């Protein structure tokens, strides 16, 4: 039965509606007992049907550590710029609360419904990306799409919430790919089913994101897409097409006018302490100062020196540098281990999901989370050139946090159906 379920692509269709008979069992005494689908379980701690407790524990731990560090990292910046040390942490805390509640609600929601929501969500994501481009570079309506450092990546809805549509696009793409792969099944090996729609969708999303000049998001979306396709069964040789296209793009850059500047950027990345004249490595240098200052045991929580306006916006992408400074190598290692455990648990849950849709959806969410965390820390430690990537659970951004926790809700929802030890 279980085996059968997992191999059936669209699991939702096979499930009867609540209260409908699912089968009939004939007792020894000849009476028939009609089996019905049980009412939704809100029990959190029930083996088999509850949510995965280690995952919940990891999420809440990361969230708590993230909030504490956000407060520590942001209070000087908040004090100087907004007059209140609590400016960031109070907002982030509220969003976290909303996010956790949303996560728990979503975790009770059968993720198979997402099959139906797939197209609308994708449509919304593409719509939002297009809206950014229309209200941003095209119309320059700052109230809806604010210009931040020359880039248009944010959208402001009714003056209430503000977020990056690329975040929505990430989830929409994961969902779309998980859906397509689970429907395609063995057909994934073919060019027609396993390559064309995927590259088509990826091309559309990437194209819109790259028009926002959002390189890091493009990179992450592409990476997740490639991983999902690979796991889903797309033949390895088709990826050569991407490699070829990538090489083409790279050569275009090399022969373009901006190549000199790009080389200077590389130079600045390789030796941030002596950058070329036109490259600003201030942020990287300050980040390294912060990391170095932490040494093994750190300067102690709240004691960071670098957050005093040296490290620009320490509450955002470079928050991990403050973690390194205040908690030292040991503290940073513990945070990294938490992230690693999260990835491990996410993968574990996904692989034990009831069906392939759950597996791929879970893996997509887990990888998105993992890739962002790793790339963020890579940027902070100058392992890769500086590009804007937020650290999940740590970096400031209320809407982003709520979306992230919502995704966690989906992951937990998947875990409900996974037959694994959950305590």
């Amino acid at each position, binding site marked *: 039965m279980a085996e059968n379920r997992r191999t059936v692509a669209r699991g939702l269709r096979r499930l009867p509606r609540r209260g409908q008979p699912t089968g009939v069992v004939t007792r020894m005494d000849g009476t028939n007992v009609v089996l019905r689908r049980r009412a939704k379980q809100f029990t959190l701690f029930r083996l088999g049907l509850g949510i995965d407790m280690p995952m919940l524990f990891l999420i809440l731990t990361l969230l708590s550590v993230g909030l504490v560090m956000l407060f520590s990292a942001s209070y000087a910046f908040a004090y100087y710029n907004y007059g209140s040390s609590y400016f960031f942490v109070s907002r982030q805390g509220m969003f976290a609360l909303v996010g956790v509640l949303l996560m728990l609600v979503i975790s009770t929601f059968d993720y198979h419904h997402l099959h139906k929501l797939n197209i609308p969500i994708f449509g919304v994501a593409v719509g939002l990306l297009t809206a950014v481009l229309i209200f941003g570079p095209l119309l320059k309506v700052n109230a809806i799409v604010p210009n931040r450092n020359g880039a248009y990546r944010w959208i402001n809805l009714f003056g209430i919430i503000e977020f990056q549509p690329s975040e929505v696009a990430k989830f929409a793409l994961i969902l779309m790919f998980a859906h397509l792969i689970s429907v395609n099944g063995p057909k994934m090996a073919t060019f027609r089913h396993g390559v064309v729609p995927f590259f088509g969708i990826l091309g559309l999303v990437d194209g819109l994101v790259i028009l926002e000049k959002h390189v890091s998001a493009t990179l992450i979306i592409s990476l997740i897409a490639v991983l999902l396709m690979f796991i889903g069964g797309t033949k390895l040789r088709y990826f050569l097409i991407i490699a070829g296209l990538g090489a083409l793009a790279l050569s275009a850059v090399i022969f373009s006018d901006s190549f000199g500047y790009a080389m200077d950027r590389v130079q600045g990345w390789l030796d941030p302490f002596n950058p070329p004249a036109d490259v600003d490595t201030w942020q990287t240098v300050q980040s390294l100062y912060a990391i170095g200052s932490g040494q093994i045991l750190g300067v102690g929580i709240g004691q960071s020196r670098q957050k005093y*306006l040296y490290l620009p916006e320490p509450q955002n992408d470079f928050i991990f540098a403050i973690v390194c400074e205040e908690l030292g*190598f040991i503290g940073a290692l513990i945070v990294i281990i938490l992230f690693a455990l999260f990835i491990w648990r996410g993968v574990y849950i996904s692989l034990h999901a009831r069906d392939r849709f759950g597996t791929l959806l879970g893996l997509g969410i887990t990888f998105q989370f993992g*890739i962002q965390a790793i790339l963020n820390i890579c940027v902070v430690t100058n392992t890769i050139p500086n590009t804007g990537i937020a650290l999940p659970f740590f970096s400031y951004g209320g809407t982003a946090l709520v979306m992230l926790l919502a995704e966690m809700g989906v992951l937990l929802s998947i875990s409900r159906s996974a037959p694994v030890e959950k305590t």
Partner: protein
Amino acid sequence: MAGSHTSKIWRKTVVITVLLLVLGFGVVIGNLVRWQIVRGEELRMDAVDQSLQSTSLTPMRGTIYDASGSKILAQSATVWTVALEPRSISVDDGDDVKIAQILSEELDVDYSTVLEKTHQNSYFTYVKRKIETDLRDRVLERLESEGVGSGVMMVEDYKRYYPYGTTASTVLGFTGTDGQGLAGIETYYDDELTGTAGRIVSAKNSLGGEMPFDYEQYIEAQNGYDLVLTLDETVQSIVEKHLQAGLEACGAQEGGTAIVMNVHTGAIIALATKGDYDPNDPFTLDPAVEEKLPEKADEAVQKALKKEDEELALLEFYRDIAISETEKKEAEENLRAFHRMTAEEISELREEEYDKAYSEAQNKQWRNKAVSDTYYPGSVFKMFTASAALESGAATLDTSYTCVGQWDFNLPGVDPISCWHAGHGLETLSDGVTNSCNPFMIYLGQLMGPETFFKFFEAFGFTERTGVDLPGEAGSIYYDEDELGVTELATESFGQNFAVTPIQVITGICAVANGGYLIQPHIVDRILDSEGNIVRSAETGYKRQVISREVSEQITKILLKNATSESGKNGYVPGFRIAGKTGTSEKIAEWEQAKLEDPDAVKQYIVSYGGFAPADDPQYALLVFYDEPQIGTASGGAQAGPYFAAIMKEILPYLGVDAKYTPEEFENLAASTPNVIGRTIGEAKQILEEGGFTWSVEGYDGDNEDAQPVYTQVPSPGTEIPKEGNVALFVAELTDEDYTEVPSFVGCSLTDCEYLANLADLQIVITGSGEGYAQSQSVDKGARVKRDSVVTISFVNDSEIETAAD
């Protein structure tokens, strides 16, 4: 099929996950190890460096007081540096124009320059340094009333003031723009005066704002220590006044110097060098000096041109005498290649030479000759030779020698040394000194021998720097004991052929005067902190005893006699028992050097007078010397002596040395006129008669003298006039007829002077012995003065005093 598909997903996922974890986190952890553990300390230091900003708190430089402790010789005051912050100037509001307008009007800077600065793309730019506080207030007030809110900054700074101007300038020195001492005491005591800069060490955020916790530390600026000098401003001014007068009289082209020292403590009471400057404006030259600079530059250019001509002539000569073709060709080639200076190069050279001359002149005016220049002490040194001879026992007061006008070495190939006099005949040691007889000194030198002579030379401190607390003390130049041959010993015995600094000589004079102790000359008496506590006091101990008290007293007696009646009598001051010795020395080595370049070079001299007073209880020593006098015959007695006397006469009463007159001195004494203005003529007559003066009434024919008040008197009250001199009483305002023209007395004998004075209705007061001729007069000739005014005339007598010994 399905199963294998699932396990494929598993495998792929596991591979990707492991890669992600191992590669991703592996690289990240590796980098963290690199930054936090390997390079952690280095980065931490860099981070601390950038955030630990220390704001320097400038300490106030210490004040320099004179010996009285109340007169301020040098003081720092707060001034302001005007700077612009162009970035915060609002051009839209027209602030740039307003700022340029106000600053150019108030600060005497160019309008367009300031306007340009307001448009600069920078955060900070200077406009003018060191303006006074009231000017700053005015500028700020105007800016405010014009509504200029931001953009102009006033930065606090300090400026050094020298209230007495040129007085003691070469001693005090001056400071540079950053307040660092550049010369004189300002340099020597720079560390003490500077103080310690305070610091606010605080962790700053990147905007320079202070971080709100922990890291701040406030170290208060320690203001510089104050110095109290031994130098007395009153004495210094007197010394400078007379030194300058003497300098002008003899036209010494290398300047002159005078030192007053307490013989017991080594405290320098005055130290003057003329040809000096105003430390408030140290880089400006005396206009008279500056005037001559183009001439000097021209001379150098002419010299260069002449040299060029000579070289050219030489090349032409080579061409003309060339024999072979190749030689001729080569010579012609050289001639063609010869480069003559173009007009442009010549003017460039002139400019260069001018700049050189300018900076040389600056250095010269800053130079403290008393410690930085060496000179040949000449006959002043004879007191040391005599002291050494007496102390060593090589001679006694009864030692005698017959001077025949020259000293013959009786050695083949060694020329005899002449005395300045044709032959003093038989002399005792006392005569030898008072006659300033060279052969006698040579005789004493030979009696002692080089070993003993050098022992005392060394003991008097002529081989070592005195260690006076002034910068740039020069070392002396002399023959070492083993280099002292017969001729060297002979010439050194009478003060030639070695060079010492004036400060060494006066320290030696103090030893002769104070009973034989070589004291430590010093100019800073005590160093005070800002609360007035003494941080350090000068050590007044002596270094060693050079001669016994007995010898000291013997030599003092000889010098007293010398200054009263013999060769040193131009330094005589009635009542003050001056002991002194003249000195005239030749700059022989320099002359020989100059002759190499210019065969017509003239031999230059140094004239000096060194002595102390009072002889019965020596208190103060004084050395006056002029370098290269150009007017009149070079003579220490004639050219330095009168100014030595003039200085002593004025400073000794001030320094609390009472005059004790001999009966005959009392006879010649000048007296001070009483004040009778406003009294009736009758009363005035009575007062004047009581004071021993005569009187005359001008412009009054009436007979009611007891009712007629005196409108004015000539000479004015308090003037020194000859004893029994005349005081003219006027009953009405002076008319043109009451004035007379001062004749020229210079060069006249006493009788002639009296005649001229009589003719012009003037009274004269004589300084010096009154023998010989008048050398200078206190009021310039041709000046219109009131009838019966007093003119002081300095007399010199060079008939019986040495001139340069050859």
